[in-house]
């Protein structure tokens, strides 16, 4: 590429500059697009991949240091030579820039590009990943012009660069090791509890967060998609979210809307509350003077939803906010003699007790297809506990003490849990995010 963008090839120094600019534009734009696309994929996945990427970076560093031999995925192609003779200069220079800026259409001498791709997925933020990858494109563009600085002969410039190859490879190994260290530390840093401002009753699905807020005794709910303006629903409480669907309770009952368009999707009127959503399934608690019933409604046929009662308890006891995901439903049952966390597989009806106690309060479970979290409370502290469906081992991922820091309702998405933290004295509440 250095020997391509020369006055001799381009036709004049002026045309050389135009070509370099075009190449840079194409390279940066294409790289940014790759980064943004990978970031978008990561956002959809919504899982913590930092450790995986750290491991890849370590493996790449070992490869670059010659410790392991690993083939790299690559297309052993070069930019089409004929474009220079068939296409106008601005077109072929931009085209060359796009081809090299994409990264995967040409030779890959080092593994760093693929580690960067994995990191963009792990980041899960299209804008940030796009900006980072734009730097890759800028680097590509810089390398077409810089080696010739002070060197009138492009061949000599290329040979000068080649003589420094060993140094460049060593620097690359160092950079990969640094990345591996930073990525390995990232989950630990990310696991540091982060408060998200006032709110309660979190709901989460991928990159969408929902919360309720109390203002002067009135409740409203917020839908907070990442990188978008939050959407408020006044007079509502107890949000639940699943993709583009958002459920809440209000004075009439439970409603489900498409939060993007605010179009109503479903409603259940009456003494119903505490919705949970895994569309087309909607769970809620229906209360009367005698019982509280946990109901799951199937809206596969929206015109005639099918309801099923999962469980019922006496009205004086506490049947908590349910959670629906991955074909399961979870809820808590607290009485004056005991508290229990239940989970039931909807297809089979098989119910299991996840946790039970005659002493503690176990409440507010949230589930995904792989995990469950819930709150455990005693007279001195609260804890947010987590368990995988596949393992009985329970892990504490967050803990508070004192009555000014009690834990309440929860939400779970991927490896991120949300919990309401509140004060008994003031009833003020804060949402807390815990990465684990």
């Amino acid at each position, binding site marked *: 590429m250095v020997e391509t963008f020369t006055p001799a090839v381009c036709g004049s120094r002026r045309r050389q500059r135009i070509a370099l600019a075009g190449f840079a534009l194409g390279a940066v734009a294409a790289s940014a697009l790759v980064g943004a696309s990978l970031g978008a994929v990561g956002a959809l996945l919504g899982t913590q991949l930092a450790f995986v990427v750290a491991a890849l970076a370590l493996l790449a560093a070992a490869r670059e240091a010659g410790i392991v031999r690993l083939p790299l995925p690559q297309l052993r192609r070069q930019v089409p030579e004929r474009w220079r003779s068939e296409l106008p200069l601005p077109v072929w220079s931009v085209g060359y820039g796009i081809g090299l800026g994409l990264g995967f259409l040409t030779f890959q001498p080092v593994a760093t590009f693929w580690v960067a791709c994995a990191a963009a997925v792990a980041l899960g933020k299209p804008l940030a990943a796009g900006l980072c990858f734009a730097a890759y494109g800028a680097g590509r563009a810089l390398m077409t012009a810089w080696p010739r600085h002070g060197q009138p002969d492009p061949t000599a410039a290329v040979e000068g660069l080649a003589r420094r190859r060993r140094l460049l490879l060593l620097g690359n190994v160092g950079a990969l090791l640094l990345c591996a260290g930073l990525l390995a530390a990232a989950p630990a840093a990310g696991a540091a509890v982060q408060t998200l401002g006032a709110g309660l*009753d979190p709901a989460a699905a991928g990159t969408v967060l929902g919360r309720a807020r109390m203002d002067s005794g009135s409740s409203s709910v917020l839908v907070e998609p990442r990188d978008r303006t939050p959407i408020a629903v006044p007079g509502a*409480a107890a949000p639940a979210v699943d993709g583009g669907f958002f459920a809440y309770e209000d004075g009439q009952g439970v409603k489900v809307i498409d939060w993007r368009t605010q179009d109503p999707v479903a409603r259940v009127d009456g003494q119903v509350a505490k919705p949970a959503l895994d569309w087309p399934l909607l769970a809620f608690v229906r209360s009367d003077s005698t019982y509280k019933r946990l109901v799951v409604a199937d809206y596969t046929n929206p015109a005639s939803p099918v309801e099923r009662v999962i469980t019922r308890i006496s009205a004086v006891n506490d049947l908590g906010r349910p959670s629906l995901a991955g074909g399961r439903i979870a809820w808590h049952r607290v009485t004056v003699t005991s508290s229990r966390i239940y989970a039931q597989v909807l297809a089979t009806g098989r119910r299991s007790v996840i946790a039970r106690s005659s002493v503690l309060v176990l409440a507010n479970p949230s589930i995904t297809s792989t995990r469950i979290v819930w709150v455990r409370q005693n007279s001195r502290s609260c804890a947010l506990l987590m368990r995988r469906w596949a393992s009985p081992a329970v892990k504490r991922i967050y803990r508070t003490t004192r009555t000014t820091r009690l834990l309440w309702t929860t939400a779970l998405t991927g490896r991120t849990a949300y919990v309401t933290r509140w004060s008994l004295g003031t009833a003020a509440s804060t949402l807390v995010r815990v990465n684990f």
Partner: protein
Amino acid sequence: MRRPDELVDGAAHALSTRLAGGLTRRSFLGRMGGAVLALTGGAAVAAAVRPEEGEAFHFCGHIWTTGSCPSPRGRPRIDRHGYPLRPGDGRPIDNLGRLVNAEGYAIDSAGERLVGPDGEPLPRAPRTRLCEEWVNERFGLNSHTQGSWYRCCGNQIRKLVDCCSRSRRRINGDASLVGYCWHGNRVFCVMYYDSGLSC
């Protein structure tokens, strides 16, 4: 069928209430003496009239070394049935240490129901017996309230209660004693009940 100590307690309580109702504390002690009480409530009740022996090892009336049963507020104060009370004033509390009303709902000191962050009254939490439920769950023991004895503490009769089990270790970690337990059980931890009767 009521436990033996419940029968003795009931009789002693009824007798002492009747006797104390018409007499001053000094004349009651002077006239009745320990012997009469010993007939109805055993020697342990009689010992309660000796306040100079009431000083505690870790709370008043408990002169041995067995530790307290687990409880919401530290001091294992219980009601007649073994449920937790607030140590300072004897008001009922739940397992989270919150004052509760007769229905078991958490209340503040003025009797108003506590509310959660959503503005709704808090639901009930478990309120279970310190010996039969707390010790059972925390230590995996089949525990029962058995033996008891009485002391005068704070000018009122305090009943000290053994939580007994088959464990050869008590809650302190050292070897357990038989104490007032029966049927092969040994003392695991202790609790207390304040009768409110003057002594």
